[in-house]
């Protein structure tokens, strides 16, 4: 395994399995604080999975975290400890533009 990033631990935390939209990039997130929000979780995952934060104009890209167990997109304001369980699988799905400029 290649360590992509690490920081301070947390006692109230869980581990998650994460994949990108292609289903071809996988990562394990460990020590995700139960009191963090899904928005914070997604933000923290992007850089360390080498996924862009912004579009070509510099505007933030919107990513939905899809919870495979329930087959739904999590809301950014949902709290990890209330919506997610240990070892849940989430997929990061972006709203992304094709264009012809």
């Amino acid at each position, binding site marked *: 395994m290649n360590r992509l990033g690490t920081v301070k631990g947390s006692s109230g935390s869980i581990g998650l399995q994460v994949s990108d939209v292609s289903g071809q990039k996988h990562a394990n997130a*460990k*020590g995700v604080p139960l009191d963090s929000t899904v928005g914070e979780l997604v933000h923290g995952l992007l850089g360390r999975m080498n996924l862009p934060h912004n579009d070509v104009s510099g505007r933030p890209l919107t990513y939905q975290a899809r919870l495979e167990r329930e087959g739904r997109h999590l809301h950014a304001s949902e709290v990890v400890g209330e919506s997610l369980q240990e070892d849940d699988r989430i997929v990061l799905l972006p709203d*992304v533009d094709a264009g012809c400029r």
Partner: protein
Amino acid sequence: MSQSGHRYTLEIISDSGELLDQLAADINWEPPAECTRFTGIRRGQIPAVMATGERVVQPVWHPKLERPYVCEFYLTVFGDNGEQVSAEIPLSYVGDLARRASARLVEKGVLQAGSRFHYRVFAVEDSAATQSEPSAAPSFSVEEVPRALPLHTGCLLDALEDGLRFGTMTAGDMPVFIPHHVLTEASVLARQAGANETGGILIGHLLRGPGSPEIFAKITAQIPAKHTRTSLTKLTFTADTWAAVRGAISQRGQDEIQLGWWHSHSFLKELCRDCERRGDGTCTTNPSFVSVEDVALHRTCFPRAFSLALVISDSPCGGLGWELFGWRCGMVVSRGFHITEALQPAPRLVTASIVNRESQHGKN
């Protein structure tokens, strides 16, 4: 961890040789490293595993401008057991950075819109120039999980025999096979969308034969993109689009993976509606390209080196066209492919043409 060992600076120069700007080049080495790794997998030099792994980038000094100016980069990726694969990455890899820098100069009025400019890159040794963990990381750790490349067994020679070459083939590109019906389906959808953009996802398999490490891609189907937002020059794939695609792949149950995407460029149906150059065939507008946004989408959603992007272009002056793009040296470039199932016998058509010919002879 990836190491560059150098810091790179990009210089923008006017056509008359005046230095217009100098800026730190924040080069994303992941796409060329991914391409290099995949090339190594296709040569059997490195295990068929999807992983980021270790990499090192070295500058190659420019023969005329000399050190510290760079003419290309030498990138090496490493496998877990000491295997290594290297590739020369052309200076044009930073062309996008240079174009963005030039656009800012145009905004500032330093460079005139449409005027020519040049760019060059110099490198300064810096042992601290190692991409490491982001400083503002949140309070959890993330570890990549390498996965085996999902390879099926297939015979490349059989596939080549069945295929019809389309576009310009470049040595070193992974062979790609697309059934004629997939191209037709996408083209019909593009026509139905009128001047607006539409698109879909290309799914299929990666295959490897028993006697060779070479890998080839077979598209099996296209899944029309649902839940998109569309306009003349923009197509937004939403989270719901991707969720629907995942559902469709799972429902098909054929162990397919997302190999790429397609979308249409039909904006010339508006722009060339009253084109004065259509009559004499001199209209040269070409909608067959990938835009900056298209490349960014490809990088975000299809980062693996085998991923493909098909552009269906449609214009009143040029008609309908297909162009396939894929990764090469970390850049998204036009590439050739093979059309399969294109040469099906068509007995009715043959009969019809004979009847026609006979009737024409009858008139003469």
